């Protein structure tokens, strides 16, 4: 069962939080347009998830489709592979960014990107060690 009550409660939470952020931003309690945008995005995600959750409960063919997709081992494999690719690409782009920032004399950006690359590598090695123990 992919969509359960826990997911429905979480979706309602995102929707309420999003609406609250938008309302506070409109009422100028929060003085940044960023909160309004963030609230709108959260509310939209929450709303869509609630619709999906309700459809999942009422439509048996949709439920079967979602459950198959969620449990499909090739889908899981593709998701894992995508995360790995995303990691490689981020490191590569940041590495290029470090060199570009160094050439452009943007030392703050260079430092931030370098730290970010280091952080990703540390997280990678920690994950590797944890998984090595587990499997």
């Amino acid at each position, binding site marked *: 069962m992919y969509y359960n009550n826990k997911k429905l409660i979480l979706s309602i939470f995102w929707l309420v939080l999003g609406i609250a952020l938008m309302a506070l931003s409109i009422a100028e309690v929060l003085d940044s347009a960023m909160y309004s945008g963030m609230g709108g995005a959260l509310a939209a995600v929450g709303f869509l998830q609630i619709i999906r959750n309700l459809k999942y409960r009422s439509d048996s063919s949709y439920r*079967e489709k979602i459950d*198959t997709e969620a449990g*499909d*081992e*090739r*889908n899981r*494999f593709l998701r894992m592979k995508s995360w790995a690719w995303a990691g490689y690409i981020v490191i590569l782009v940041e590495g290029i960014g470090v060199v570009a920032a160094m050439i452009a004399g943007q030392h703050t950006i260079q430092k931030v990107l370098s730290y970010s690359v280091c952080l990703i590598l540390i997280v990678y090695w920690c994950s590797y060690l944890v998984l090595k123990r587990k499997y």
Partner: protein
Amino acid sequence: MKNRIEELRNRKGLRQEELGRELGVSRQTISSLENGRYNPSILLAHRVAVFFGMTIEEVFIFEEEPSCITTTKN
């Protein structure tokens, strides 16, 4: 890895979608398996073999890579 899934599925008169439903995977997974683009886990391979009433070796054709082949000297 080559396999006989398409042949066995056709013999049973099933569509990819129907076989996917029986095995609890998507139609795309069946398609990828048949084309040899995706190698299944041992669990899925077992489920496929059981579904067709065969052994894993009868459904999946394992070809050893040249680097894995060990030679014995007489």
